[in-house]
């Protein structure tokens, strides 16, 4: 526990809204020097947003509430101001310049100079001292790009310390680390704790949280559920606090008539294209039947999207495994193979992967099924327009006409356009990856109704979502992924939020022992 009497950081009643969403709603959080305070919660609970408020990413008037450092109210107008106040945030995406050396990165922006000329010897000796201090055996003259992700993360921590950070925020620091690297990191964190640095530790991995933290704060839906000493909590109680939300009745009742197996993937293994030997998906198998909604739950980075991308022939990493459609083994090496076999894929991040924002609704809707809808070489705009207008009515896309530019639509309507694109390929099985991310409640409900309608009409649906209530409310069966492996399978009425979250955090054994 913290040694000092008063906290070095207090955040009082923090609120932050994005258009249509209230991301933080009166969050209170504090930190003492010399403690590790874990911040946990489901995806979208507001952890990262809270830390962006602290780190000055959202400058002062963009949020509500008070931030106090050493008891004095501070209003950071920029990341730089927060850094000057001794706050260092290490994000999941590292902010090192890969082409520059370790030493240059650590001292970046504060190079020792004489008459404006950088004094390299002093720079490198300072960097070496910092690395030494952390027991890191790294040559400061090596370019950062030559290091693995894990070592880069450690360099980033060294950089934070060189700025004399007293408050260090670590956002999922172990997501890309190997087991030995995790141990090195923990050694460093313990050392920093003894040096009275206050640390905020964000992680989905509850075993790490329990091993390292002094206190745990649970966030849910942008509110603080509670803060308590780690010694007085256990994993089951933390999980209950994370999910403790009623699965609303916004999910239409559905009773899907399930038919024969349409799509089966066996023993799928996917290697990280950037990190050799790291498996994103580890011998995962699943199958889905006609008229069935199969939910795939799991936390961010569990390999859900990687699994779908791989079986769709669109993953950059090497993958092994077998794919069967209606019982026949098939080869899928490119997305067009999958599409021709009747697989549709509403990908996550519609702006990046789903839509051509500059083009019309019609062009977006017909691009995947173009040869079927229009002609193999000559296009027929009118039969396309007719199909597009039918889709627009069916999915209730609200726009002037099919010739409206897709980029001008709201998120919900954009998502419907992406859905229409894949329905127009006439699929037998449809993958949906985060189909309701970033859209409002009304549009969500419409998407839910469409999912149920499509299942009723006999489509096999695989649904990936970070929103647990969504997976539980729509799926006939739920698979849970944790670190690339399938750690649980539930039928519709067996799937409770607690049980699924336990599997997703890799703690299913704890739960089953209790119940």
């Amino acid at each position, binding site marked *: 526990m913290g040694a000092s009497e008063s906290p070095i950081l207090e955040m009082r009643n923090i609120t932050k809204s994005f258009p249509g969403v209230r991301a933080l709603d009166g969050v209170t959080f504090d930190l003492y020097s010399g403690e590790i305070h874990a911040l946990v919660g489901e995806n979208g609970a507001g952890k990262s947003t809270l830390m962006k408020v602290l780190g000055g990413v959202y400058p002062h008037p963009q949020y509500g509430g008070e931030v106090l450092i050493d008891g004095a109210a501070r209003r950071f107008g920029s990341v730089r101001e927060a850094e000057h106040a001794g706050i260092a945030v290490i994000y999941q995406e590292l902010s090192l310049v890969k082409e520059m050396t370790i030493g240059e990165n650590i001292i970046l922006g504060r190079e020792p100079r004489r008459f404006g000329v950088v004094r390299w010897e002093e720079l490198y000796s300072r960097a070496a001292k910092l690395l030494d201090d952390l027991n890191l055996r790294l040559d400061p003259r090596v370019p950062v790009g030559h290091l693995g992700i894990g070592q880069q993360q450690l360099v980033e921590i060294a950089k934070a310390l060189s700025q004399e950070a007293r408050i260090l925020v670590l956002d999922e620091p172990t997501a890309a680390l190997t087991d030995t690297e995790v141990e090195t990191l923990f050694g460093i964190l313990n050392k920093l704790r003894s040096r009275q640095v206050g640390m905020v530790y964000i992680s989905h991995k509850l075993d790490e949280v329990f091993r390292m933290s002094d206190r745990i704060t649970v966030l849910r839906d942008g509110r603080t559920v509670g803060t308590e000493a780690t010694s007085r909590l256990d994993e089951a109680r933390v999980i209950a606090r994370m999910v403790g939300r009623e699965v609303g009745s916004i999910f239409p009742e559905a009773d899907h008539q399930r038919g024969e197996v349409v799509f089966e993937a066996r023993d799928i293994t996917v290697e990280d294209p950037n990190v050799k030997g790291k498996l994103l998906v580890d011998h995962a198998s699943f199958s889905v039947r006609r008229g069935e909604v199969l939910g795939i739950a799991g936390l961010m980075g569990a390999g859900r999207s990687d699994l779908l991308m791989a079986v769709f022939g669109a993953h950059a990493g090497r993958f092994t495994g077998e794919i069967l459609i209606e019982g026949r083994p098939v080869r899928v090496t490119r997305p067009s193979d999958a599409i021709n076999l009747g697989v549709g894929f509403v990908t996550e991040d519609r702006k990046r992967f789903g839509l051509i924002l500059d083009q019309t609704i019609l062009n977006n809707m017909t*691009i995947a099924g*173009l040869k079927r809808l229009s*002609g193999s070489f000559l296009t027929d705009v009118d039969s396309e327009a007719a199909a597009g207008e039918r889709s627009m009515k069916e999915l209730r896309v609200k726009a002037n006409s099919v010739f409206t530019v897709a980029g001008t*639509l709201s998120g919900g309507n954009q998502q419907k356009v992406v859905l229409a694109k894949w329905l127009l390929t006439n699929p037998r099985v449809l993958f949906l990856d985060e189909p309701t991310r970033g859209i409002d*409640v*009304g549009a969500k409900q419409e998407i839910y109704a469409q999912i149920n309608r499509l299942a009723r009409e006999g489509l096999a649906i695989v649904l990936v979502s970070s929103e647990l209530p969504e997976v539980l409310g729509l799926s006939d069966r739920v698979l849970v992924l944790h670190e690339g492996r399938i750690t649980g399978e539930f039928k519709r009425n067996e799937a409770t939020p607690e049980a699924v979250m336990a599997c997703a955090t890799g703690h299913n054994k704890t739960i089953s022992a209790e119940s």
Partner: protein
Amino acid sequence: MSHEAPTNEPAIDRPPVTADVAPPTVDVEGTPQTRIGRFRLPTTTLRAYTMLFALVVIWLFLQLATISETHPYGLFLDPVNFSKLLKQTAVTGILAVGMLMVIVAGQIDLSVGSVVGLAGGIAALTQGWGLGPSLASAIVVGLVIGAIHGSLVAYANIPAFIVTLGGLLAWRGVVLWRMKGATVTIELPVFRSIGEGFVAPVAGIALAVLAIAALAFLTFRRNSARRRHGLTVAGTGAAVARVLIPSIVIAVFIYMMNTQGGVPIPVFVFLTVALIGAFLTQNTTFGRYLYAVGGNPDAARLSGISLRGHILAAFCVMGALSGLAALVYTARNGSAAGDAGTLMELDAIAACVIGGTSLMGGRGTVFGACLGALIMASLDNGMSLLNVENNVQLIVKGAVLVAAVGFDMLGRQRT
């Protein structure tokens, strides 16, 4: 940008959703519009007409500026000069059509000028083999070079800027080496006529009649197809206008050209290339995929489109058209030389950009690129008529290029 209403309550105050869909006029999200004074125009339409408007303004200005005692109504649009202007547009225009496809696919080709030089040189050097092989060699050389560039970009993942910058230097080196500093005269009369000949006036009239008939037929068929699909059909007035206005343009054009001996063959070649290019980009799956590849490569790939295939194809088309442009250019000059075609790539790129093509890929039309080529040629031709010095001409052209893009960006920001 519009946003969804911030509400945590499930759709209570929304209009009831019934099985029958409400007409899509309620609660719609609008097409972006641009305000000009009291007028509001759909932005996309505005963009298409801006450059046409600019061309008309430039033409009127040059026409007024060239009024003299010998030409009381102005010299610029006089059939003599107009025919010359179009001939000057032809080579850049042909290249601009190819460049458009490359840029729409999100790439760039800086090697075009050197390829024109090389293809023209080889055609001139192979005249001894006979007319067919000589002409074919230019196209084949262009096509092969395009295929090499395309493969390096698509399969070796080398950025197009680098590949074609290398091509710009290397192919120029090859021409200089093969031509050995000499100028090779075009001796074959048919070859020469590609640059200097005319489509016979009668044939020109026949083509015009054919074009007008095709236009009428296609408009009619289009309307009946839309009726069959249950789509809204434009009224008879609109249909007549859609046929009549282009018909008048075609008729005036043929009449003007025929007073000068007919449509110049370079212009005929250019118009044919432009028509095929417009058709390929607007009416085929290939064209649609090309725009998708340039507009959002990730989304295109996930929609089952081969990025590599389309990038390779775009460079092949560009290469073949460079060969064709080389024939027209060499024939018009009457000879091939080592430095032929220098800086032509920049004219072609400028034509595309002035015509509203986005260098980011995914946006632009063949019509726009041709318009851009015509604007560039009009400035060249008009300023020469006005005896503007060459250095001033370059400054004006540079300023027009930057202003065209600046205007376009301004229009985009307002939405």
